[in-house]
């Protein structure tokens, strides 16, 4: 595959009536990388993903997926995509196995191939023992696993995952991460949206932070943390109602201080030292915690809000 990027968006816009869901974003996803979209509810992540999945026409700007224009070559693009939509779209009139088989048939795979693939993917999704059950009878997390399995039926070159792990238990989440790592090692390009910082930090080589329909930052997780945050963070919690004025009193102990409804965050290179100084000023939190910076802190810095309220 040549140097042409997997996905290339320039000044990409999506409008729904008067709502501008995406306001002119530039994105380049290289072949073989894992790329993340991070942002709060309504930021425009899903709208962007759906345009890339060639299931939602762009309102303006330019978009190339696998080197092709979705408006012209939608079917050819989709033939090489796997897509996990934010909301499951399983076929509720069919069983687990049938869901996988018929989906493969939509891609034009042979009957023998889809039979083989269905068995293999049920194994992956740990649903083999539910093979002939109607989809309706699965739990939420099982349905999610089946949706993810289904997206792999055509061995996609580009996999779009819109909040793939919502509803998954920790074990299933880690299993999926492991699986995604292996797909990536096999050359599959991954596009992931998530609210989970750890997920994006773990999985993504690069990401963009979206807020209010725009991209507010772009880079690798560690780059973003280095650029927008400090090495460590000191979290101070206080009993309800006693937090007032604390932020001012500890203001110069860190490079930056953020006040959240339930805690005060002190951004500093050395959290332990800052904590000593806090105590030295006779500020008495009920609990304190020193941790390293995460993408959550990057997001807070960029938007003044937390990601998950």
């Amino acid at each position: 595959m040549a140097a042409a990027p997997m996905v290339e968006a320039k000044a990409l816009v999506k409008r729904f009536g008067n709502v501008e869901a995406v306001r002119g974003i530039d994105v380049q996803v290289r072949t073989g990388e894992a790329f993340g979209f991070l942002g709060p509810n309504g930021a425009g992540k899903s709208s962007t993903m759906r345009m890339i999945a060639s299931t939602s026409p762009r309102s303006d700007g330019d978009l190339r997926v696998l080197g092709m224009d979705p408006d012209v070559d939608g079917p050819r693009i989709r033939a090489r995509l796997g897509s996990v939509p934010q909301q499951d779209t399983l076929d509720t009139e069919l069983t687990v196995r049938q869901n996988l088989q018929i989906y493969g048939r939509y891609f034009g795979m042979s009957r023998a191939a889809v039979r083989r693939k269905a068995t293999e993917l049920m194994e992956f999704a740990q649903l083999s023992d539910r093979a002939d059950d109607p989809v309706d009878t699965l739990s939420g997390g099982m349905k999610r696993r089946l949706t993810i399995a289904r997206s792999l039926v055509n061995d996609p070159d580009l996999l779009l995952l819109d909040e793939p792990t919502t509803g998954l238990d920790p074990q299933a989440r880690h299993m999926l991460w492991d699986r995604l790592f292996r797909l990536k090692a096999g050359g599959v390009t991954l596009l992931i949206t998530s609210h989970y910082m750890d997920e994006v930090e773990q999985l993504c080589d690069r990401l963009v932070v979206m807020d209010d329909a725009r991209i507010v930052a772009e880079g690798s997780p560690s780059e973003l943390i280095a650029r927008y945050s400090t090495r460590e963070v000191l979290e101070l919690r206080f009993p309800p109602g006693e937090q007032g004025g604390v932020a001012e009193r500890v203001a110069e102990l860190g490079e930056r201080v953020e006040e959240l409804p339930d805690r005060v965050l002190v951004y500093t290179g050395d959290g332990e030292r800052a904590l000593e100084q806090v105590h030295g000023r006779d500020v008495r939190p009920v609990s304190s915690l020193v941790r390293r910076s995460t993408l959550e802190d990057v997001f807070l810095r960029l938007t003044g809000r937390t990601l998950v309220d």
Partner: protein
Amino acid sequence: MRMSSTTSAATGAAASSAPARRGLLLRMLPAPLYTGRARALLERSAMVYSRAWLVFVSGVVEPLLYLLAFQVGFGKLVEEVTGPGGQTMNYVAFVAPALLAASAMNGAVFDSTFNVFFKFRYNKTYDAMLATPLGPLDIALGEIGWAVLRGGLYAVAFLGVMAGFGLATSPWALLLVPVALLVSFAFAAIGMVCATFLKSPSQFDFVQLAVMPMFLLSTTFYPLSVYPEPLQYAVQCLPLYHGVELTRGLAVGVLDVSMLGHVAYLLVLAAAGAYFTAKRLAGLLLR
């Protein structure tokens, strides 16, 4: 949870790239609308109905009950009626081909409104399909095709019984089957367009409101000459009227050129219905 090596990435393109078959439709229509894979939807329907085949039996039996009721009931009351070409004919033989057309209509409308509505509004079945290479016209043709297959099956059964009762007197009556397919296609296509406009299940009453008068008024039970002249023109606009004209003429072997007009009417309806269904699906789901 270990995966075999067949999943090793980035190779799938070969198996699943653009479809190989390039039919006439495929070349005429814009690629994003149609990729020539409507058959996959037939397969899906077959999967769904493989567990609900009893539905078919009821679909076959229902129109036959009508026929039986006429044979033993009305047939005794109304003896003769003026049929195609001005000939007088047995009343049951007059009604039977019309019932065949009407049952093709009913089956198609039911299939394409009820079934499609739930898949479309609640189950997101088509959203899932549109994330694959399938286009909206594949979906339209696939769903309509299923209604047509069912319509054809019922028509064959019905025709068999008609022949058994001695109600189909001409070899032309064999053409009732393709006519039933055409009627099914036209009504399934129109029904599917309508289904995309329905907002809630209670609105199915509107569908009934359209189908019931059509069933009663399209010269199903009495000849066109019964109506006063202005009404005759109105009746001749009803799609089912054209289906009935075809089946009735063929059943007794009275053919004339006007039949080409009836066929053309239904063909236009079918094509327009399929096209606008695809447009509606694209407009509503690919946003």
